[in-house]
């Protein structure tokens, strides 16, 4: 007599657990989404504040502080510069003008401003950069000529820009300052080794355009053809390493005018794109709900979590609101949608053959689930390889994509099992709840 009493009790407790699981995840999803739109003040907790990170049209939210728009998507600063020859009386050749454009482009790419636009208009250089009042000093630095040299204590230069092979900058975690690291050409390596051997116990000078900016002491000869100089501010370290990496400008630039302009991709591109992408997201979610009913609702829910989490991670690594970030976020969104679709289609096929929903889900993970993991897993590994290999546009795009793919994999392995499993326990395993009639016919 005990068995018939225990079975419904077990079922009821399983249903209660499923209901609690779904309610908790739903509450967390709603909380996360609302927080993404509104942000949160954390002053009372001794913290600054959690900025809103989900883009929305209009000015109601401060999400632009978390995802700073680039020159392609946000307000721009149009700086016009007059070119002047290095020596009075000389004329500027067209090759020098082109070299100036090339060097500036490389500098902007190096410091993470690839969305900036540089044009030669009426013999003047027009630079379109993201408008950010805090960057005025930095922009001024970047347009300096940038002739880098190392000099003896008496001021005689022994190493100049042509001796630098590559350079970079990094944060010193201990004191919050930045360090510049550089490598030298074979000729530069020999010169640097000779002079630092000669100057042991003394100081040499690092100069930019003839101005001394640092005087590091030499304790041992530096013979490796590479060195690191600590103690710079972030902006200075970025600009000086950009000078070492790209070489000096062949001309002098003088700021002529500075005006505020519209985004490169159109005046209302932010609002239009946010609305259009929201509509696209809803259409994809609608497709799932139409084709897979309750299963589709779970998929739409996971897709929403994916977007909220990926935007959050993109904001966390300060990738900015640029075309590159948006492509990465929506690529990972599309890949999760495709993976879910592969799994659900396989599940529907099994349901049409009379299998139970739980068996179908298990079987789908064993077949189409493997395909989804093949696609997501291989792309995640590949993006990690490309992050290591490229430090420019490909690498920065892959950083956001890798985070999105990581979210996809977690949602596919854990999120779907928990949500769909709980939904099946709570709402039952009736086939019509998980596939519509046309889908079943298709599968047959």
């Amino acid at each position: 007599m005990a068995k018939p009493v225990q079975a419904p009790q077990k079922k009821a407790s399983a249903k209660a657990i499923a209901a609690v699981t779904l309610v908790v995840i739903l509450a967390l999803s709603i909380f996360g989404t609302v927080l993404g739109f509104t942000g949160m003040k954390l002053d009372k907790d001794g913290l600054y504040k959690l900025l809103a990170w989900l883009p929305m049209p209009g000015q109601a939210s401060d999400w632009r502080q978390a995802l700073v728009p680039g020159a392609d998507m946000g307000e721009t600063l149009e700086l016009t510069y007059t070119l002047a020859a290095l020596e009075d009386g000389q004329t500027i050749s067209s090759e020098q003008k082109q070299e100036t454009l090339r060097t500036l482009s490389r500098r902007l790419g190096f410091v993470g401003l690839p969305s900036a636009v540089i044009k030669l208009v009426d013999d003047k250089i027009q630079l379109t950069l993201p408008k950010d009042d805090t960057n005025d000093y930095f922009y001024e630095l970047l347009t300096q000529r940038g002739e880098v040299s190392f000099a003896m204590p008496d001021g005689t230069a022994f190493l100049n820009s042509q001796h630098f092979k590559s350079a970079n900058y990094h944060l010193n975690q201990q004191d919050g300052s930045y360090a510049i690291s550089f490598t030298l050409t074979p000729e530069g390596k020999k010169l640097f080794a000779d002079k630092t051997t000669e100057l042991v116990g003394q100081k040499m000078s690092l100069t930019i355009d003839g101005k001394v900016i640092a005087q590091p002491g030499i304790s041992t000869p530096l013979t490796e053809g590479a060195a690191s100089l600590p103690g710079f501010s972030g902006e200075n370290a970025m600009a000086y390493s950009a000078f070492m990496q790209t070489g000096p400008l062949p001309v002098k630039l003088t700021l002529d005018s500075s005006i505020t302009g519209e985004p490169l991709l159109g005046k209302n591109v932010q609002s239009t794109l946010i609305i259009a992408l929201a509509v696209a997201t809803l259409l994809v979610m609608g497709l799932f709900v139409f084709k897979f009913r309750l299963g589709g609702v779970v998929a739409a829910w996971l897709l929403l979590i994916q977007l909220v989490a990926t935007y959050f991670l993109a904001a966390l690594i300060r990738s900015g609101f640029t075309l590159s970030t948006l492509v990465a976020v929506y690529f990972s969104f599309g890949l999760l949608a495709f993976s879910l679709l592969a799994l659900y289609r396989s599940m529907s096929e099994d349901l049409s053959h009379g299998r139970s929903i739980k068996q179908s889900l298990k079987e789908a993970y064993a077949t189409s689930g493997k395909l989804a993991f093949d696609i997501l897993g291989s792309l995640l590994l590949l993006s990690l390889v490309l992050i290591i290999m490229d430090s420019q546009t490909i690498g920065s795009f892959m950083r956001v994509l890798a985070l999105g793919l990581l979210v996809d994999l977690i949602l596919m392995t854990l999120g779907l099992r928990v949500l769909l499993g709980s939904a099946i326990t709570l709402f039952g395993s009736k086939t019509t709840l998980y596939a519509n009639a046309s889908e079943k016919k298709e599968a047959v």
Partner: protein
Amino acid sequence: MKANSMANKGVALSVALMVLGLVAAVAGIGLKFYANMHDAIDFSQLFICMLAVVLFSFAYAAVRHSLAAGVTLGLIALHDQLLTLALVSLVSILVPQSQNMPFMVVIAVAFTYCQSLPVLRAALELRAATPLREMDHAQVAAQAISQTAKLRLYGVIIALVILIAGFVSGNGLLAAFLAPLLIALLVSVFSARFILPGLWIIMTTRLAHNKIKR
């Protein structure tokens, strides 16, 4: 033999387009960029990343599935990367490209995987489940194509819905800058349908033949 002849024709068409794109780029007609954006691109870095994509695709499928699958996926990735770049070079004559072009060409591999991996996996599963006397390689490839057609179509629909959202927003430059993604999508559909089956048959037959010889 139908799949092989389709693959031959497909490869011939692709090679012709690749040559055209390369000639246009070398002649200075193709691979045009907006303003001075080409100066922000390190092309040697782009080619190294494209090579990494091809080698990774080969290694991943070879380790995960088989050597034949590895060679097939590696060659399909190579085809898709090169054809996408060639078509971008040609299309840029009409619509200028941005400094984002390199990552858009490299990420074409995501479309390649979404279109080709389902076919490749289906073919491998069918081959493993069906003896050669019941179904030859060509029949297996044909069935893998038809079995995965709906899934691949839905993949294209999802990608198009998101891409269209981008195309209708902003000014003409946004559409121009997104063009490489649309090209990559079309290229991946083309290679999965017309080149992959024939290539897989050739690789499976050749590598099995070499094994027997040894």
